């Protein structure tokens, strides 16, 4: 029996019970739709995190003061409570670790900033222009503070896009004076927007100032909270970690067996972690959605079993006029696969619609990969074959004499 005929026979049998076929298909539609939509959410999140990490630069080595494993006087402080990390450490790293080609210091202060009658609570980061250049972060207007400003601990700053918008609105901030912790700062420039970070905070809600200014005038300290360094490559960033560690241990006079009073991390570690987390999330969402696909498959099996029983006589007639067991089995299998294939196709279409809706209305990033669509299609056919096999086998094994006698 040729496939064209088998298909036509299957289509006719399904069309005969339109409502039932539609409801059976619905199970697969929902299953495939859920898989597509959920996996697209997971993969969207994965890609977003990946992009953010890449925008930060994958060569970044991040050295922060303090270590979660080291307490001071028995107490454990936050990673920035240790006072040993200095600008000299940074100079030493640049000089002695050739894998590192650039570095910038970091001191953070949270502060109320005021311009006119507008005010905003934000974070001020003290650093050098290298920090911004390492991150490919340019000014949208004005300029970045200079080496002279750093040496002079001048009261100049560069505003992140969010801060500039909140304080100045439509006005031009360049050359204006804002107050940070009541100290006047001249606005030298406004940065281009950078968006959310991988951790979800607004990277544009920030003010940059010379680190010397932040150290002396805002915080009254001479140590750093972190050093942001850039290695010559992603691989070099990983290789640089032990070199930086031994250098800093020596400089900080940490004895053998004692814990570090700093922490060195690379962006590629963070990227790997984020990627792994994203994978797990996608997998989790996908497997939860697959359960509904499985339930849809059981629905197909259920209906096919009913159908075989109802059509026992038809099977008997077909066998009497010459249908072989294979013919009968193929006919019922094709019916099941047709159901699941059509259900899968509708489910894929609906899943695409849903993922667009999710990204438009819930503002979640979604990514529908061809691989996910291909997998869903393969899966729905596999479900049809798997759950259609038993009923089809049952139909094929009927005894023609019994089947003809069936009322």
């Amino acid at each position, binding site marked *: 029996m040729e496939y064209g005929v088998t298909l036509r026979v299957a289509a006719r049998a399904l069309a005969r019970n339109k409502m039932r076929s539609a409801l059976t298909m619905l199970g697969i539609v929902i299953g495939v739709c859920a898989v597509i939509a959920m996996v697209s959410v997971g993969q969207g999140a994965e890609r977003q995190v990946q992009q953010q990490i890449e925008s930060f630069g994958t060569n970044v080595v991040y050295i922060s003061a303090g270590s979660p494993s080291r307490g001071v006087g028995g107490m454990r402080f936050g990673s920035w409570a240790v006072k040993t990390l200095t600008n000299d450490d940074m100079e030493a790293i640049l000089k002695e670790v050739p894998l590192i080609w650039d570095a910038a210091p970091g001191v953070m202060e949270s502060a109320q900033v005021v311009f006119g009658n507008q005010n905003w609570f934000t974070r001020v980061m003290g650093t050098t222009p290298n920090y911004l250049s390492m991150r490919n972060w340019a000014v949208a207007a004005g300029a970045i503070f200079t080496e002279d400003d750093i040496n002079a601990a001048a009261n100049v700053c560069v505003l992140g896009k969010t801060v500039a918008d909140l304080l100045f609105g439509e006005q031009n901030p360049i050359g204006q004076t804002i107050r940070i912790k009541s100290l006047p700062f001249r606005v030298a420039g406004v940065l281009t927007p950078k968006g959310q970070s991988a951790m979800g905070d607004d990277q544009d809600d920030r003010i940059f100032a010379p680190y010397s200014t932040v150290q002396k005038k805002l915080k009254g300290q001479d140590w750093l909270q972190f050093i942001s360094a850039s290695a010559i490559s992603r691989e070099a960033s990983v290789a640089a970690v032990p070199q930086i560690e031994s250098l800093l241990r020596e400089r900080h006079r940490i004895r053998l067996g004692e814990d570090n009073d700093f922490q060195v991390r690379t962006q590629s570690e963070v990227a790997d972690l984020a990627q792994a987390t994203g994978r797990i999330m996608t997998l989790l969402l996908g497997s939860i959605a697959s359960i509904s696909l499985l339930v849809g498959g059981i629905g197909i099996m259920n209906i096919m079993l009913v159908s075989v029983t109802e059509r026992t006589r038809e099977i008997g007639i077909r066998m*009497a*006029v010459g249908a072989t067991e294979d013919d009968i089995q193929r006919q019922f299998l094709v019916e099941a696969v047709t159901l699941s294939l059509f259900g899968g196709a509708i489910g894929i279409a609906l899943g695409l619609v849903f993922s667009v809706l999710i990204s438009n209305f819930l503002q979640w990033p979604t990514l529908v990969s061809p691989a996910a669509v291909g997998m869903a299609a393969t899966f729905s056919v596999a479900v049809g074959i798997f759950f259609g096999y038993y009923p089809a086998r049952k139909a094929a094994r009927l005894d023609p004499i019994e089947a003809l006698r069936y009322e």
Partner: protein
Amino acid sequence: MVGELNNAVIRLEDIHKVYDLGEVKVPALQGINLEIGPREFVAIMGASGSGKSTLMNLIGCLDRPTSGRYLLEGTDVSQLDSRARAQIRNRKIGFVFQQFNLLARTTALENVELPTIYAGLSPQERHSGAHAALKLVGLEAREDHFPSQLSGGQQQRVAVARALINRPSILLADEPTGNLDSHTSVEIMDLLTQLNHEQGLLVILVTHEADIAAYAQRLVLVRDGLILRDVHVRDRQEAYEVVKDLHALPTESVN
């Protein structure tokens, strides 16, 4: 005795059929020997439980004998597997049932086409074959009707057309008039007789009705799984008398 005909279409040699119901074994056929030649019109008669249905299922290759040989056109088909038997049914045997057994919600033409699908014919061949077969039974005007739109007699004609479409060697009719009124029964029997006469089709009729059996030229009476009588008759009149005699036989087993 077996072996008299050299051109036998059907030759059954010591056919036994035992139904194994687990605890008990029920013998349905206990040594059937039968030869049927081409162009014959045979009526197999017997009460219910006599084994005539089992015999028909075996001749129709719907079932296999427990022992014995069944030669169909010289080929031993008694131990073929289900696929091979399906092919024999498709090409060599046409079935007509008491219940008509047409596919519901399927047109007369498509019902007639059904065996050709499994014979692997092209759509054109299927179509023209079904046309011709329906014309032969006088239903060319009803091609697009569903079984529910046809009378009992017309449905049985469609079934006959379906049985003929693959040009089988044997037409097996199992109580073909059991669901029809007497007038329509005559029509169907006339059709079968005509096919036997004009097309030279071998017709095997299974029935328990005397006036239906009387259409045949040969009467085979089955009882308790054995052939009790096997009589050739010259005409309807003689057939009636033989059938009357057969019915007069004691209903209990003679042996």
